[in-house]
């Protein structure tokens, strides 16, 4: 996993609550192997007509087509567990989504792919989106180590993140190495568990 440390990039405002993963990646693209093709898949049916021509969409237009940060509304990423929704964001270039809340499964999928989900409150997100709409192309800086988001006017907002998720993102660690450190504990657990619930292993 590519580490996430800091980023200063163009941010795109998406003024819509409950953006579901079917919008981020329409289901028929789930079978596409991970790779650059996912850049075009992000919001595909909102960005492209059936003939492949572009529709009017914020992520199709300069400067937002170069955005690496999205400022969204509440319950971002609801619905299906498809990780392809994160592949689409990532391959488009998005490294950080800032929202008042995230759907659980999508949130975990972001963490596991080096994409930083940042929770700020509704008022902060709304203010950021307003600023981005009024000044298209303005940048936002995110510093994971310091846990801060700084807007184009220099205003800084702190955010919370679980220390383990922070460490994994900063160092680009995946969980398997960490789990395997506990192999002895797992084996001991399993031996006792198998004895107690032998019917599961009959």
């Amino acid at each position, binding site marked *: 996993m590519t580490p996430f440390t800091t980023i200063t990039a163009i941010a795109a405002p998406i003024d819509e609550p*409950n953006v579901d993963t*079917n919008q981020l990646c329409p289901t028929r693209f789930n079978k596409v192997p991970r790779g650059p093709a996912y850049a075009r898949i992000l919001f595909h049916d909102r960005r492209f007509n059936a003939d492949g021509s572009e529709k009017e969409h914020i992520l199709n237009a300069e400067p937002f087509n170069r955005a690496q940060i999205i400022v969204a509304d509440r319950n971002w990423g609801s619905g299906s567990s498809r990780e392809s929704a994160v592949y689409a964001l990532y391959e488009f270039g998005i490294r950080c989504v800032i929202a008042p809340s995230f*759907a659980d499964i*999508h949130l975990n*999928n972001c963490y596991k792919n080096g994409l930083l989900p940042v929770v700020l409150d509704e008022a902060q997100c709304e203010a950021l989106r307003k600023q981005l709409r009024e000044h298209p192309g303005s940048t936002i800086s995110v510093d994971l180590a310091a846990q801060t988001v700084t807007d184009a006017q220099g205003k800084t907002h702190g955010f919370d993140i679980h220390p383990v998720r922070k460490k994994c993102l900063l160092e680009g660690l995946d969980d398997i190495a960490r*789990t395997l450190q506990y192999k002895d504990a*797992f084996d001991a657990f399993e031996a006792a568990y198998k004895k107690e619930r*032998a*019917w599961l292993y009959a």
Partner: protein
Amino acid sequence: MNQTARSASPQTLVDKIWNRHVVVEDGGELLLHVDRAFIHEGASHAFDKLAEEGRSVARPKQVFAFADHYVPTTGRDKGVDGIANAEIRNMVLQLHANSAKHGITLFGIDDPRQGILHIVPPEQGITQPGLLICGADSHTATHGAFGCIAFGIGASEMMHVMATQAIWQRRQKSMRITIDGELGFGISPKDIILAIIAKIGVDGGTGHIVEYAGSTLRAMSMEGRMTVCNMSIEAGARAGMVAPDETTFSYLQGRPYAPKGAQWDEALAAWKQLPSDEGARYDREVALNAADIAPMVTWGTNPAQGGPVTGVVPNPREIKDAIIAQEVASAIEYQGLTPGMALCDIEVDKVFIGSCTNSRIEDIRAAAQVAKLGKAVVPAWIVPGSQLVKRQAEQEGLDTIFRNAGFEWREPGCSLCTAINGDQLRPGERCASTSNRNFKGRQGTGGRTHLVSPAMAAAAAIKGKLTDVRELLKNS
């Protein structure tokens, strides 16, 4: 975590199962033992990651694979060769190949037990009380109906589960949703869960595991409980569950993977300890009265955008919150509806009865009871959840009822719920559907979905529009 203090105080069903699965705690995260993992063709990304890292499946006997998302619902006599689209065929073939390579138990396209990954494990007794189950699908909460913790995960986490048979989690908050009273005439478990979602919202359960309780749930069959738990994710909760009871135990007894002989008694004794202790506390409580629930129908593009069939399409101008008003306006525009129009005036082009929410035998029976009362005036599909459901329905003569009423009797799979096997709506087409999601484009690009119960869907097929099924049944 102080285990002594924890066990001294009354525990919830969730606490008991969760605590028994903790392997270690590290930095505020818990490594949990996973009893069983369920995957489908979409796990291709997880297998790609395993291959990339050169890892194998740690406990293949505890992983079960189901061909469901990409299988066709007609022409199945030719098996996998019957899939005309090479990309779709390849998804099924890959699942078969990966299962064989890793020694995973496969319920493949030709298996006489084939079906949806949330229908087959309960039928086979693979789903049992007290387990921790991870599924490569957000509707894994279905299995919670048996009193187990079951939740959906993405490809990276599934790869981790397959490589280690464990998963890192943080403790979730608890919510109890209590539904008391007798269900009204013509009301089904689907109406209950749609009413719950409309009440608490699509993110009302985020960060929580829901326990459904109350006399309505106690009186409900396993099939009904599965329908309720299935849609927990549509309220943002990854897991929903019902405490196991005699209904659970008698459903399980004798199923192929259920414990047998002395082990049955041992398991039963353990399962009976699972229900929440008296006085156990929940972080949030919600209560509904079953008698207040009417047949539900969604008008919008998320599962909370719905109401009783007797209602009307809302008017965004009457909504004070600007963002919600905009969201409602956008949904109504996409759906091609007008504010204030009666929901039972909405004409449909198609009817779909199926999906992991509503394709069990009771769902098929409920639809058949209505199908008997007329003829379908629009294309109407019945897609049973599994080959077992299909055969059971055929033994009961339900397929004949459907055929005589002009409904199409198809082969098991996810079909028009997730619309990736080739079954899909055309742009602008409107469908009364027993599935779980009405997101924009969910049933095909530009397609429009109205979520309803099986009886309501069959009624829509007969009338060609959304209809209060109670009127039809009353006059029968």
